[in-house]
């Protein structure tokens, strides 16, 4: 094949082609879009000399195996969620979200400015990998229920699809937690094999058809108040990258982080409005469930911390940050939002 080459400022830099394995299907266009943003920007900034090709989940490796693929060098980089790998190290949960954790902006502050990402990178170094915040879904919803909830007791015995730490908390509240892949949620919920399911937010959930399978849509998604998505890079590949390209990659990840959050906030707001006009009944979990979930979360985190020194260390630092961030948020955004949006 023959094509024209643009020979300007970057001409002395080498051609680099990377493959990026992602945890997302094409259909989750907003979240997959994070990978596309990185690829597009890196290519534009380098005049087409540094290119990254993103691959959907399953194309190279399954969605939950992206860290393994980056670690072993099967791909140079990946786009995924850190908490998929809590089985390898429980502290990786903080890279995405933990129950009753941080809002999107607090998450960014922690990662970029309060040493959060450096702490995560110390963990990722054991895997020969480097991590970059590279997207945020914004606050998520609390899931779809076939029946209306009425306090913590109404959760007991419910069959719910909810993975991760949120699932562990739900299990502690007496929920029969099931872990199903995304594609199976709709059918299981529609037929009643499960009573409830959480996925992400109004925009993605609607695409999955969940509003047709269950009527009650609960908020907030207290287990994922502002989950960050992560770009992972193999350290050997990173070391070989010219410094200019390293900077391009890092900037592109920051771009993706901002753009995905903004895009999700726009799409979700609109999708929720549409749902409200349809058959969906949007409901608050209620103080009873929220309080029970929070105290179960505290117990669970303390429990994990007892068994894992690394988790304990990071959790302590993170808690200090959360304390500080909440104090600031209360007098600024929260007080303002209460006044201006609340009535």
């Amino acid at each position, binding site marked *: 094949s023959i*094509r024209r*080459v643009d020979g300007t400022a970057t001409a002395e830099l080498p051609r680099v082609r990377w493959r990026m394995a992602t945890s997302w299907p094409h259909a989750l266009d907003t979240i997959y879009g994070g990978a596309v943003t990185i690829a597009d920007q890196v290519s534009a900034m380098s005049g087409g000399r540094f290119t990254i090709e993103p691959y959907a989940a*399953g194309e190279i490796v399954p969605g939950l195996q992206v860290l393994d*693929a980056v670690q072993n060098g099967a791909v140079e980089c990946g786009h995924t969620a850190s908490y998929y790998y809590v089985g390898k190290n429980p502290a990786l949960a903080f890279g995405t979200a933990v129950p009753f954790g941080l809002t999107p902006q607090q998450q960014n502050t922690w990662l970029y400015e309060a040493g959060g990402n450096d702490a995560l990178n110390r963990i990722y170094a054991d895997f020969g990998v480097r991590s970059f915040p590279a997207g945020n879904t914004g606050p998520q919803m609390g899931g779809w229920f076939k029946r209306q909830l009425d306090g913590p007791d109404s959760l007991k015995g419910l069959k719910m699809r909810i993975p991760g730490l949120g699932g562990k908390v739900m299990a502690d509240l007496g929920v029969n937690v099931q872990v199903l892949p995304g594609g199976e949620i709709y059918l299981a919920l529609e037929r009643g094999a499960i009573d409830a399911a959480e996925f992400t937010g109004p925009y993605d959930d609607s695409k999955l058809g969940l509003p047709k399978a269950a009527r009650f849509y609960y908020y907030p998604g207290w287990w994922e108040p502002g989950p960050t998505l992560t770009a992972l890079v193999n350290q050997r590949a990173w070391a070989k990258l010219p410094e200019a390209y390293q900077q391009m990659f890092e900037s592109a990840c920051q771009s993706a982080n901002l753009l995905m959050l903004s895009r999700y906030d726009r799409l979700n707001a609109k999708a929720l409005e549409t749902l409200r006009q349809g058959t969906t009944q949007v409901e608050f979990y209620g103080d009873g469930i929220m309080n029970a979930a929070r105290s179960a979360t505290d117990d669970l985190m303390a429990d994990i911390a007892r068994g894992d020194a690394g988790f304990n260390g990071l959790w302590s630092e993170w808690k200090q940050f959360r304390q500080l961030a909440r104090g600031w948020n209360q007098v600024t955004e929260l007080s303002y939002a209460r006044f201006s949006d609340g009535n």
Partner: protein
Amino acid sequence: MGFEIEAFGWAIGFYPAEVLAPLMFLALIVALLSGYPVAFGLGGVAVIFGVLGIALGAIDPLFFSALPSRIFGIMSNFTLLAIPTFVFMGAMLQTSGIAERLLQAMGQLLGRLRGGLALAVVLVGSLMAATTGVTAATVTTMGLISLPAMLQSGYNKSFASGVIVASGTLGQLIPPSIVLVVLGDQLGVSVGDLFLGSLIPGLLMAGAFAVYVLIASQLNPTLAPERTEAGLAGVAPLQLLRVLIPPLVLILLVLGSIFFGIATPTEAGAIGAVGAMALAALEGGFSRTNLSKVCDETLRVTAMVMAILLGSTAFALVFRSLGGDALIRQVLVNLPGGQVGFLVVSMAVIFALGFFIDFFEIAFIVVPLLLPSARELLGPENLLWFGVLIGANLQTSFLTPPFGFALFFLRGVAPKEVSTKAIYQGVWPFIAVQVAVLVLIILFPALVNTLPALSQTS
């Protein structure tokens, strides 16, 4: 992948991969026709071409390290668990003699109808299709239960094989279906809408099979015997019911529990397996020897099916790394303009690819390439219809020789006396029926769009 030489502001690329990817298919054909197990043909050719690609600098040696991750993905795929449970149920019903008596009784009831047993297979196939979307489970289970009975009743081997394989693939179109879930992912169409939209086409497909089976056995008496000459001839109706009801109740219980959400397909399969054991015990066909035989059969079939998936994941990985997807992209780059041209060419390409690669890879490689044109030419509101069209088309890919996975699965459980050639021959009429139904769906989009539209308004 390949290298480029830059001169005078132009880059000239050489891609040995462009040659290796098509060669891979040729090598696979040779490997499979050599008669060596399909699974290792796929895996072996993948390794040979992977090493060749590395030697020619076309691929990075590290890319092979994606293989364990892909294998682990198969290991943790919950839907595949339906395979051993359903196979166990089928093998238990077969070994204990219940299946044979059941099908004979059904043949007896439908006896006046030429091809009655084949009709029963289409019926049971549709029921299984509406509950599990796992072709491997359906084809192997039905192969175990019904093929011996049909052969005993004097059915033509090709005809019997064709009915089973074709009915087994109905699960791809009749919801729930894995194909549709993957397509929903790729097209960005709601899986719920896809399921609703494919219901009428799926039932139409099943109906078309039923009609074909009846007409063919009327026109060609050698395909299906006039009446089943089995041991139950002349049995009193009451006796007949006693034979019919227990296994039918079991099968309906299993399928019903999935349909009404009492259990997932895997769990229902397990319940069915336990139920089959209980039934065998009641009917006196249960023994330690039988249990051991059934477990062994289940293990062999499961290992056989899974080995094919393992081999094909290796094949797909290497094919992709050699730029096979880019190759297909080139074919699709110059699609003709206009709705008709686009539809004809895209359907033809998917159909042709179905001869060689499995639906999963087709969905992954082809659909993203077709999506922009489909959106532009057909309009975003027609993506649902387009998705069902692709689904119906991909169903055929399970059936087309030489690489139809459904064919492999039946071959794996069919008795020796049924030759591979007979299976290959038996499947062609059903492929023709499928193509006819596909054309119908193209001509009448309302077949797809009516139900989802109804659900919007309600």
